[in-house]
C-alpha cells in the first residue's frame, strides 16, 4: 500500500510520489482535450490542487483507484479549461442539457442479458464526460455526492442531478437498443 488510511495525516512526500508517478499520464489526458502543452501542465497542477484539498475525504489505499480518480479529476479540469477558453459556462447551477429528455423509459421492456453489460460499457464509453465522471466516481470510488462535487468543482445539486441523469441516460439508451433490436 502506497498510502495510509488516515488521509488527513498523509505525508506530503507520498503525495509528491503520486504526482511523479502519474503526471505524464495526466498530462496526455489533458492534452487530448486541450491540445496545448502549457494548458495541459496547468491542468495537471490544478488536478493535484483539487486532490490535495479533498484528500481527507478520499480513500486512497487502492493505487489503481487513486490513479483512476486522478484521471477523472484531470479530464474534468481539462474540460473546464477548454470550455473557459471557448467562453462557455463551466459549472452552471443546474444542467439544462437537452440531450437528456424528461420522458420515462419502461423497465418492463428491457431484457437483462449478458450483452446488456457490454452495452452499458459501450454507452459509458460514448457518454458525455461530465455525466460519466460523476457516475464513475460514485460507482468506482464510492465517493459521496458532496465529495464528487468538490473534486469536480461543481455544486452539490449539479453533481446530484448529473448522477441521476447519467443513470437515466444509460437506461434510456438500453431501451432504445432493445427497441432497435440491437440488444
Amino acid at each position: 500500500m502506497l498510502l495510509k488510511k488516515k488521509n488527513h495525516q498523509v505525508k506530503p512526500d507520498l503525495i509528491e510520489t503520486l504526482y511523479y508517478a502519474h503526471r505524464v499520464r495526466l498530462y496526455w489526458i489533458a492534452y487530448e482535450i486541450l491540445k496545448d502543452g502549457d494548458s495541459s501542465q496547468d491542468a495537471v497542477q490544478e488536478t493535484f490542487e483539487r486532490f490535495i484539498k479533498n484528500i481527507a475525504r478520499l480513500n486512497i489505499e487502492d493505487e489503481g483507484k487513486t490513479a483512476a480518480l486522478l484521471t477523472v479529476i484531470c479530464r474534468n479540469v481539462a474540460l473546464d479549461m477548454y470550455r473557459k477558453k471557448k467562453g462557455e459556462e463551466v459549472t452552471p447551477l443546474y444542467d439544462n442539457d437537452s440531450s437528456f429528455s424528461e420522458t420515462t423509459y419502461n423497465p418492463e421492456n428491457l431484457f437483462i442479458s449478458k450483452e446488456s453489460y457490454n452495452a452499458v460499457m459501450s454507452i459509458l464509453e460514448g457518454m458525455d464526460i461530465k455525466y460519466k465522471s460523476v457516475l464513475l466516481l460514485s460507482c468506482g470510488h464510492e465517493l459521496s455526492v458532496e465529495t464528487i462535487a468538490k473534486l469536480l468543482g461543481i455544486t452539490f445539486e449539479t453533481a446530484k442531478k448529473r448522477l441521476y441523469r447519467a443513470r437515466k441516460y444509460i437506461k434510456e439508451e438500453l431501451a432504445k437498443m432493445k427497441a432497435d433490436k440491437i440488444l
Partner: protein
Amino acid sequence: MKTEEKIVDKVLDTLIDEASAEAYRKEADYNAPEVSFSPEHERNMQKLFKNERRKYNLRRATVVTGKVACLLLVVLVAMSVTIYNVDALRTKFFNFFFVKEAPDTEIRFTETKQNSFSNDMVSIGYIPEGFKITKDKEGINNLFLIFENEAEYIQLKMNNLSLKIAINTEKGTLENIKIKGHEGFYLQKGTETVIFWHDGIYTYRINSSLEKSEIIKIAEYTTAK
C-alpha cells in the same frame, strides 16, 4: 412503477454500478509517451508540495502540543490532589510560595499548617515545627503535656480552677498579660519562660525554653474541651 418494474430498475442500477466500476478501473490504464515539464510548472508544483509539508508539520505540531497539554494537565491535577491531601507536602508547598520566596508577605498560611495537638481535654492549635509530644498524662481534674525537640521543651499543665496552684516567682521578672481576654501573667526566670492564665474553669501554665512571643502564641491557640 409496478413491483416488477422496480425490480428490473434495481437490476439495471446494479448493472450500471458494476459496469461503471469496471470503466473506472480502466481509467488508470493509459500508455503515455514521455514529456518534459516546464521549469515554471516544476516550480509551481514544488511550491504546492512545500505548502503541503508546512501544513502537515503544523497539524502534527498541533496534535503533539495538544497531547502534551493534556498530559501536563493530568500531572498538574494529580500533583494538586496529592499536595492538597498530604499535610506535609501542603505545608512545604505553601512554605515555598509564601514564606521562603516572600518572607514579608502578610499571608501567613504556615500559621494554620503547623503541628497541632488534641486529646479529650484540650486542643492546641499551634505547636512550633519540630516539636513532638513526649509526655501525655491526663487525670480527672488535670492534664500534663510535654513537647520536645532536640534542644527545647514546652510543658503545659492544666488544672481545675478549684485546685490550689503554687508558682515559684523568686528571682524572676513578673508581668501581667491577657490570654484570649482572660487574666494571666508572664514570668521570665533565667532561661525559662512561664505563662499562667485561667478561663474560669481551668488554670493553664506553660513552662518553656522558647521565647515569650512563641509561648503566648501557643497559649492563644490552646482551648479546653
